[in-house]
């Protein structure tokens, strides 16, 4: 495959229709854009059904990327719903050294077992708990986004935190109470999660 020096970082998202995986993917594109990168954020569309498995993709690079295809050999994979592990081969094509970032309450050993003894790099994030503690409801997007940034190292964390504050202030200017909650969710996730 590609030997390009400036190959973009490629990320594949797995979620279920209605859970916000597409939104999280577009949020990551936005965060990367703020930090001066070239970005692509795009979902793979099919018949739209709530709960059906969906895939979304990011390319993030320092130079413009002209490729317009789906991603088959991602650097990292994000799983927003662990029940997908039963039906979707989420590790398919993942590059050597890539990180699987998964939203789950389970122990990492259990996740590894569910993946047939996966011994690669893994980052488990309990997005539901973090979101409930900080936002009062289960909105997994902000924790998942923060986990991807921390685990992958694709963006500078301090810059990311600053940019997202601005973005939340813009997005939620009519609901300022949500801004603080989201920022808490973001920083709490970045403190908690680690790659093993």
């Amino acid at each position, binding site marked *: 495959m590609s030997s*390009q020096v400036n190959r973009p970082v490629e990320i594949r998202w797995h979620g279920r229709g209605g859970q916000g995986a597409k939104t999280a993917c577009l949020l990551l594109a*936005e965060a990367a854009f703020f930090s001066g990168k070239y970005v692509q954020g795009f979902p793979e569309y099919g018949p739209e059904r709530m709960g059906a498995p969906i895939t979304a993709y990011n390319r993030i690079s320092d130079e413009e990327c002209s490729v*317009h295809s789906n991603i088959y050999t991602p650097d990292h994979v994000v799983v927003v719903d662990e029940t997908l592990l039963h039906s979707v081969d989420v590790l398919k094509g993942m590059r050597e050294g890539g990180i699987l970032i998964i939203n789950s309450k389970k122990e990492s050993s259990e996740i590894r077992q569910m993946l047939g003894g996966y011994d690669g790099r893994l980052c488990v994030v309990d997005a539901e708990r973090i979101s409930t503690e900080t936002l009062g409801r289960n909105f997994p997007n902000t924790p998942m986004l923060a986990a991807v940034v921390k685990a992958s190292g694709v963006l500078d964390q301090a810059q990311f935190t600053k940019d997202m504050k601005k973005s939340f202030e813009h997005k939620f200017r009519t609901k300022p109470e949500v801004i603080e909650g989201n920022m808490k969710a973001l920083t709490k996730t970045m403190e908690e999660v680690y790659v093993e």
Partner: protein
Amino acid sequence: MAIRERMSGNEAVATAMRQINPDVMGAFPITPSTEIPEYFSQFMANGQVDTQFVPVESEHSAMSVCIGASAAGARAMTATSSCGLAFMWELLYVAASSRLPLTMAVANRALTGPISIGNDHSDSMGARDSGWLQIYAENNQEVYDNFIQAVLITEAARLPIMVCQDGFITSHGVSNIQLIEDEKVKAFVGEYEPEDYLLNDRNPLAVGPYGTAPYYMEVKRKQAQAMMDAEEIIGDVARRFEELTGRSYGFIEEYRMEDAETAVVVIGSSAGTGKAAVDELRERGVRAGLIKLRVFRPFPAKLIAEALSGVKAVAVMDKTDSFSGNGGPLFSETRSALYDRKERPLMVNYIYGLGGRDVTVDHFFEVFDALGRIAESGEPGETYRYIGVRDAEERRR
């Protein structure tokens, strides 16, 4: 100073529309172009435009609204896709033969049969002989730039224009874009001052009357002439646009064609994927090149023929099938363009990406591999080929 932004192709088109602030927009939603009237109606609600927004019950009526508005002397626009474009069919010919300036954004999507919302070019390619100008984009930047240029092209050529982009791939894909300041766009497109129009009581005229046999053919001949004359207009507008933005646009883009031995000819977003393949092949010492068509109507036959005449083997790629037994539309026209040349490359046709089927850098490697073999052996082999079609045995797996 350009404005650094990120947005989808649909938002880019809607942004261009906001900056242009047309007199009339006829709108009926259809996936994947629905977001264009959605964004635009937000601009309406915010008071950012003072367009007469006419939500109608079908695409047939959306096009009728635009035709009526344009005939009355207004600057009119709409957006559509797939079956929506098909439902406009009858009116497409009315707009073109009445020589009405109109700008239509098309987010290309497969036509039904089987039902699909995926991208291909069957919708606009089916309308290739309707007398509309057609411009295609590789990415969100190009669709934005093309749309702004289109307004001037359609008004000078007095032919309606389709500004096409690949549905979902660029219409819904978010990426970086350089926007032009509102006031610069407004100054670039200026005020529309039609020569003849129905609301001009000093010069009454009829639009769309019956064409009796002694007159019909002259109307058609003039329409054909207008299409040929549009060539110069498209070039002029591109030059002015380059002065404004520094971004240059031709009828075709020749990518690493200088000394190319093998080349692909392609339209739309897959051109970007093909360029990545060409870069990689060049690193390996393969003399590969790519030609991207930006303007399909009028067809830049001479330019393509010149660009391809020194190449040994060429693959022309069609994102639609003509079911003609004689290749897709881009292939037929490209091959025809080369007929009168003494030096002609060997040429094959690839049908690809139908109904949203993904096309990758690896697929382009396969195409260039095949071209390498053709160039070496001098034998084109099978002329009509398909990318990634599974045979019956593979389908069962």
